[in-house]
């Protein structure tokens, strides 16, 4: 027998803290990532050239390069500069792998999510905006009450994919010594030399989390996009 089921049973409890860390990283980075993404998406729509170009450059850079290299750039790269190491409160965070991983996840997520949100904003039905203006709403009022809520609803399917991608991306934090689900699997592998049991168990946890995320997102989509069915 290639896979030892008893060993898998023995491994499962070991993954507890790994699951907690993976979820912690995922939830915190999605929260801050969303906030940053909103800002970036609005900057990208802005007519102010400085805001517009800086947002575009940010999105272009972080969507065009691998997440793994971004982690290295933050965790190993920033320490190269004396100026950063001298700022005590900053270095307090940046010398810890957890905060570096979090920073990398937030930035990466923001770049992708900004693109999704921007896309949803620019594809808003013209009639919705015209109606808002006809009611006497200012540009910002129509953004705040009509365009953004409508765009976020329509962004749910794409955003769900992004959340699953983020879950997968968290597995790369194991390269900077963090013990997330993948980190635990790698530790168990090297202790027991049992690659199938270690990595298949990890894979099952990820699969389960993906299914869970998809299930919740599907429910949300059904609830928030009910009104779209009527139009079709």
């Amino acid at each position, binding site marked *: 027998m290639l896979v030892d089921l008893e060993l898998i049973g023995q491994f499962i409890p070991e993954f507890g803290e790994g699951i907690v860390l993976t979820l912690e990283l995922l939830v915190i980075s999605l929260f801050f990532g969303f906030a940053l993404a909103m800002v970036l998406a609005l900057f990208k729509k802005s007519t102010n050239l400085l805001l517009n170009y800086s947002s575009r450059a940010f999105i272009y850079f972080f969507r065009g390069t*691998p997440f*793994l290299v971004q982690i290295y750039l933050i965790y190993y*790269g920033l320490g190269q500069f004396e100026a950063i190491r001298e700022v005590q409160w900053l270095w307090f965070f940046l010398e810890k792998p957890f905060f570096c991983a979090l920073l990398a996840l937030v930035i990466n997520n923001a770049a992708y999510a900004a693109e999704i949100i921007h896309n949803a904003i620019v594809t808003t039905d013209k009639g919705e905006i015209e109606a808002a203006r006809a009611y006497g709403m200012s540009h910002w009022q129509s953004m705040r009450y009509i365009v953004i809520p409508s765009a976020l609803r329509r962004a749910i399917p794409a955003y769900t994919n992004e959340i699953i991608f983020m879950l997968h991306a968290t597995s*790369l934090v194991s390269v900077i010594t963090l013990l997330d689900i993948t980190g635990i699997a790698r530790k168990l592998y090297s202790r027991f030399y049992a690659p*199938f049991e270690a*990595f298949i168990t990890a894979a099952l946890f990820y699969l389960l989390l993906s299914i869970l995320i998809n299930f919740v997102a599907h429910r949300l989509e059904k609830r928030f996009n009910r009104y779209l069915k009527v139009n079709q």
Partner: protein
Amino acid sequence: MVDYFIEVLKGAVLTLELFFLSLVLSVLLGLLAAFAKLSKNKVASFISQLYVTIIRGVPDLVLMLLVFYGGQIILNQFTERLGLGFWEINPLISGVLTIGFIFGAYMGETFRGAILAVDVGQLEAARAYGFSPFHVFYKITLPQMIHHGISSFTNNWLVMLKSTSIVSIIGLKDMVYIANVASSSTRKPFFFFLLVCLIFLVFTSISLKMLNKIKNSYRFE
């Protein structure tokens, strides 16, 4: 510094090699998965569905570690039985197999969507004119598949290009691996990882230009 700079560029060539080999494998697997999922054969469509679900639910890195370390054990048992001694798994082969296998699933979804978008009436018309099945695929389905699927294909291409970087974790000496080595010996990690980022940006930008050109030449409407 200059030596390492040249080494990183050599690593970039290996990255491209890895990418194109994986691309070929993923396209072949993708076509297979797409036709299996669309076929009337229940077993084939179930296997194809399972393949896509597993790949989409599990991170690339976990799959790669499974193939690399697990594959080594299977290979050891195999060579032991044949009395061939110890064979070490090549990280390049391992990388191509894993990345090709992973993106085969994504390509499969892309191709399936593209095939479904082709009007059935046209296929029937072609068959009525006496086209062979191969001819129908080559002359009718394929050009329209490219038209419908190119955007999603481009997306897969770009994600895959970036995913090649994870093979450095199992010891393939691609540009990310070399940047790691260079960083620790020159103590200039920011410089080297930024260099790798810029090379990736060049690769992704060229790819995007090229694929957009193809997209524009396959416009019908």
